């Protein structure tokens, strides 16, 4: 059922497609996270903007990915930009929501103690709210990363490469091995990235892990 010889002769392409896949994902996450921080900050500073911002991000999130790419192609062509506009759009909702939830999640007693010690409002945000939001923000990043890795397979449709190329070609030729290779490597990549974020959280938020039940 599995054509091992094909795999052996295509190791070079598998590596190259994986590289493309990772690059597409990283760009989407970096841009998506930066944009989300900006929008979350706006929502934090102007609470009335939170509703419209999440509403817009929610609408973007519900558009089927294939439809979104089809809509964009007339404007931006079969370009990297088209792929990334789509991928970034899908990260926004989860990231913005988690960042804002994280900022809001600081226990009131911690904020009161901070103010009582003489923190300014800005110090409360930077020294208390932001660091304490790290676990929630990272769990948002985990979901966004895994979602993006899955979505990148679709960008093969607009000729931007990635592991989706194997799946697409395999489907066209009814060649199971190629479909499996594309799928398995994608899943493995998602699991790997997810574990990387778990490790990052332990490093960045050591207080969570060491908290013991009293």
């Amino acid at each position, binding site marked *: 059922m599995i054509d091992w010889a094909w795999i052996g002769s295509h190791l070079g392409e598998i590596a190259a497609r994986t590289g493309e896949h990772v690059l597409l994902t990283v760009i989407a996450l970096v841009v998506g996270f930066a944009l989300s921080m900006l929008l979350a900050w706006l929502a934090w500073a102007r609470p009335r903007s939170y509703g419209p911002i999440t509403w817009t991000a929610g609408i973007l999130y519900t558009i089927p990915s294939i439809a979104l790419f089809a809509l964009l192609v007339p404007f931006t062509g079969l370009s990297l930009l088209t792929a990334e506009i789509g991928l970034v759009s899908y990260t926004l909702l989860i990231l913005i929501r988690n960042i804002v939830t994280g900022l809001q999640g600081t*226990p009131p007693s*911690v904020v009161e103690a901070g*103010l*009582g*010690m003489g923190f300014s409002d800005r110090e409360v945000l930077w020294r208390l709210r932001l660091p304490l939001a790290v676990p929630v923000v990272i769990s948002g990043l985990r979901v966004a990363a895994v979602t993006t890795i899955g979505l990148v397979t679709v960008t093969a449709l607009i000729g931007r490469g990635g592991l989706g190329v194997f799946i697409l070609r395999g489907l066209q030729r009814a060649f199971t091995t190629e479909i499996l290779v594309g799928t398995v490597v994608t899943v493995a990549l998602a699991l790997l990235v997810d574990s990387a974020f778990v490790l990052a959280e332990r490093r960045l938020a050591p207080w969570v892990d060491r908290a013991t039940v*009293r």
Partner: protein
Amino acid sequence: MTEGAPGHSSTAIRLEDVCKTYPGSAHPAVESLSLEIRAGEVMVLVGPSGCGKTTTLKMINRIIEPTSGRIWIEGTDALTTPPHVLRRGIGYVIQQVGLFPHRTVGENIATVPELLGWEEGAVKRRVAELAKLVGLDPELLGRYPAQLSGGQQQRVGVARALAADPPVLLMDEPFAAVDPIVRQRLQEELVSLQRRLRKTIVFVTHDLDEAILLADRMAVLNLGGKIEQLGTPAEILANPATPFVESFLGRERGLRRLSLLTVEEIDLEKGPVVGPGDGPSAAGQAMDRYGTDWVVVVEDGRLLGWKWGADLADEPHGFRASVAPSDTLRRALDVILTSHTQVAVVEEGGRYLGIIDAAAIGRALAG
């Protein structure tokens, strides 16, 4: 802290006609409250929930902004000082502690010194000093707050509040969330800490026993922050000014007063004392004077024990009930009741001082 604070003359905190009305509320939470808190005293604000005691406390460091009125702290106008500057000079301890979960115990304690830009070595020394002061194992300094018990967390809270050595300390029901045994220990530690530090402390509680234990003076508040009575715990317990205060003090007012008076404060009776070699006539005289059928045997001021008047040849027996001069009358009464005797001997390091009985305790309360 019944002995009263020294330096009564200087006022540390002055509240003048302070009002607070919360938005959307018809009645002010605090309506025109004026209060002077002396330097180095523990002022306890006590009253039922909703009486405005916490609101009053939090207006001092402007966690809650007064609607009107003036507040002076150590001679400076609190309401024209930027809040974060004001607060760095005021220690603040709250019931939920509010330790920063992402910072170690040591880092939590170092918060204000770091804000004030202390040099790193000085901060480190100060943290070690404070850990010792509040009885925290130095090993805990590297841990995170979630790894500590409730009592340990509140110790860290107190250490953090004291870190930059502020003259004024605000404490909002700091021990209400810990279990009774730990609470009692923390209260006792605060008493001994305050004996050394002599901070000006404003302490809010709804627990009358806690107020009596800690207060140099206390203010009993009614709804709207109305001060019903201001005075030392002993004054208030002895003479409640209004029916509200009387009902707030409750039925155990007499018992509570007992815990404010010590054995040495009352006139002790000498008791039916005889020397070890005294015969029946001396013993008879001593027993007649006190209406007892036993005598206390004392040699050169040292307590040897007691004997039945009828068995003077016996070796003296040890007293079952014994108290020290620094014990409270409450403890003395408890000792008398639990040892099933009518009387306790008062001694200190084997030195005989006198006897105390339930009747003497009763007279002390009446007088």
